[in-house]
C-alpha cells in the first residue's frame, strides 16, 4: 500500500489519469449541444446530405466520449489502436455486405412484383373498424384470404 500512496497526487503518474471537473463538464456541454444540433439538422432538409451530416455529428460525439470520458487520450496507445481496429473491421463487414445486397435487390423486387398478388397488402389497406367491440373480426378479415376470425384484439 505505502509504496503506491505517492501516486495519487500526481495526475500523470500512477495507475490512472484524473480528469478535471471542468473538462468533463465542458464535454457534457458540447455533447448536449451536438445533440440539439443533430435534432435541428435532422428535421430540416439538407439536400441529400442528411445522413452524412447526422453521421458526422454522431461520430464527433462518439469521439468526444471515447477520447475524454473513456480516457483514451491518456491511456495506452494500444487500446485506441484496438478500438479503431475493431471499428474498421465493422466497416469491412458493412462495406461487403452492403455492396452485395445492393447488387441483387433487382432480383428480390422482380420476384416480389411477380408474387405480390398473394399478399394481403396487395389490396388497399382496409378502414379501421368504427367500433372495435363489435365489428373488429369482420373488418379485420376484409383484406385477406384467410378468413380466420380474429377475436384476439383486446
Amino acid at each position, binding site marked *: 500500500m505505502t509504496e503506491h500512496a505517492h501516486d495519487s497526487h500526481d495526475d500523470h503518474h500512477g495507475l490512472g489519469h484524473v480528469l478535471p471537473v471542468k473538462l468533463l463538464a465542458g464535454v457534457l456541454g458540447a455533447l448536449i449541444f451536438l445533440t440539439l444540433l443533430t435534432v435541428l439538422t435532422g428535421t430540416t432538409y439538407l439536400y441529400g446530405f442528411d445522413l452524412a451530416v447526422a453521421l458526422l455529428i454522431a461520430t464527433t460525439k462518439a469521439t468526444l466520449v471515447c477520447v475524454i470520458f473513456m480516457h483514451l487520450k491518456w491511456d495506452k496507445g*494500444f487500446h485506441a489502436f484496438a478500438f479503431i481496429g475493431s471499428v474498421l473491421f465493422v466497416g469491412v463487414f458493412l462495406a*461487403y455486405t452492403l*455492396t*452485395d*445486397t445492393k447488387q441483387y435487390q433487382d432480383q428480390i423486387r422482380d420476384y416480389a412484383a411477380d408474387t405480390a398478388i398473394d399478399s394481403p397488402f396487395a389490396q388497399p389497406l382496409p378502414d379501421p373498424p368504427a367500433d372495435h367491440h363489435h365489428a373488429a373480426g369482420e373488418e379485420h378479415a376484409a383484406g385477406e384470404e384467410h378468413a380466420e376470425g380474429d377475436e384476439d384484439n383486446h
Partner: protein
Amino acid sequence: MTTTTPDVHYLNHEKGFKSWFWTLDHKRLGVMYMWSVIAAFILGGIFALLVRMELMEPNGYVLENAALYGFSDKLSAADLYNHFFTLHGAIMVFLVIIPGIPAALGNFALPMMLGAKDVAYPKLNRFSYHLWLTGAIFFVMALVTKGLDTGWTFYAPYSTSHSDSAVIWATMGAFILGFSSIFTGLNMLVTIHKMRPDGMTWFKMPLFIWAIYATAVIQILATPVIGIALLMLTVERTLGVGIFDPALGGDPVLFEHIFWFYSHPAVYVMILPAMGVVSELIANFSRKPIFGYRSIAFSSVAIAIFSFIVWGHHMFVSGQSDIVNVVFSALTFSVAVPSAIKVFNWVATLYKGSISLDTPMWYALSVIWLFGIGGLTGLWLGTLGTDIHLHDTYFVVAHFHFVMVGSAIFSFIGGIFYWWPKMFGVMYSEGISKLGCAIAFIGFNMTFLPQFVAGSHGMPRRYFDYDPQFEVYNYWSSIGAMVLGVGLSIALYALVRSLMGERKPAPANPWGAVTLDWQCTSPPPPHNFDHAPPVDGPYDHELVRWNDELNGYEPVDPVDGDPNLARMGSAKTV
C-alpha cells in the same frame, strides 16, 4: 534430472469434486477442458460413425432399423440421419475443435510457457469453463428434446420457420459456447500482453503463444458476430422480426453473410492453434530453433487478419452478387500464401536437425501430410470456376475434414501426447501410441480421400440416400471411418492405460524442450513458479543436454542446483 513425482503438485494439493469444480488453477481447468472435449469428441464421433454406416450402401438400412426398433417412433430414418449429421457437425465444431487447443492445451501450457502463476483472470477462466459446460448441457437438451436437423450452419429460413427440431436449445447453446470462447480468448490475450517474464519480448515468445495470440484476436473480434447471428435467428424464430425470413420480407443471404463473417474466421480459431502446436513439436523434436521464426509468427497474425475478409468464398453459389464473388475469390488466395509458408518452414526446420521420432512427432509429421492435402484442395474451392461444380459436394466435406480433423484434431492429439507427461507425470507406452497414430492416419486417409472423388463426380453433401454410382467411394469411406475410429480408440487407450496400474513416472523434461513449461516438475506445483525464470530465446536447445546416466535430459546450468529448473537464456545473459 529427477524422475520421481513430487509429493505435492497441482493434481493432489487439494482433493474432492469441489476442489476441481471451483478451482481457479489454469492447469486444472485445462485438464478438465481436455477431458470434457474428449467426451464431446466421443459423442460426436459416434454420430459420425452412425452417419458413415448408414452411407455404406446407397439405400443404407442402419438408421431405418434404428427407427423401426423404437429408437424413435416419430422420426423417419431420413430425419434421424439429418439429426445425426447436424449434431455431429455442431458438436464437433462448437464443443470440440473450437475450444480444443486454445482452451484445453492453451490453458494448461500457456501460462507455464510464460513462467506465470496463472492466466490474467483466473475467475473468468473458470467462468469460461462453466459456460462451456452450460453450452454442452444446452446441446444435450437439444439432443434429448427434439433433436436438431438444421445442419450446423443453421441456414435461414429452414432454421427460422421450417425446422421442427430444438433449434433454440442449440442456438442458445452455441451462443453460450461463443461467450466461453470469447472469454478464453480475452484471457489469453491479456495474459500474453501483460504477463510475459523478463527477457521475453514479442519475438522471443514460443510460436505456440503467437498462435494462441492470433487465435485470441479472432475469438474477440469474430465470435461476437456469431453470437448476434444466433440471437437474431432465435428472435426471428420466436418473434418474427423479419430480418432473415423472406416470408416476412427478410433476406436469407444476409444470414449467410453474418454467419460466415464469424464462421470463416472460426476455421482459423481451429487451425491456428494447431499450427502453433505443430511448430512447437517440430522444433523440439528436431532439437533446433524453428526455421523462419518471424515469418511463422507474422503468418499467424496475417492469417488472423485475412480471415476476416474472405468469408464470401462460402457463398459463391448462394446468390451472392458476381462482383463480390470475384473480390472474395481473389482475397481467398491471399490466405493460401501464409499457410504455405508455415508448411515450408516446418519442413526446413528438419534440415540438419536431431530428429527423435516420439509419438508427438508422429502426429506432427502426419499433420504435414494431412494439412498439405487439406490446404491444397482449398485451391479448387477458392477458384471461382471450379468451385461452382464442387460447391456443397463431398469434395467440400473431404476438404474441411482434412483441415479440421486431419490438421486440427491430429495436432490436438499430438499436443495431448506432448504435454501428457507434464499434465499427469506419467509416460505412456510409445509402442501403443504410435500404433494408434498409424492406424488413425491410415483410416483418416481411407475415409476422406475417396470423398474427393465422390464430390468431383457430383455427390451432394448431407444426402441420406444416394445414387448407386457413388457406392464405391462411400463404401471405402465407411470402412476408413471404422479404421479411424479404431486408431483413435487405441490412442485413447494408450493415454488412459498410462494412468492405470503401474505408472511410469515422467521426468520433468522428457523431450529436452526448452520452453518454460518444461522447467518445472511433472506434474507442476500448484503455482508453477515462485518467480518467472528469466528467458532469452524460445528454442535454445543448447541449454539442455542429454545425459546417458540419467537416460534423459538435464539442464546445462541448473538454477540453484535444482535439477528441474534450467536457467533459460540467463546462461548467456546473466
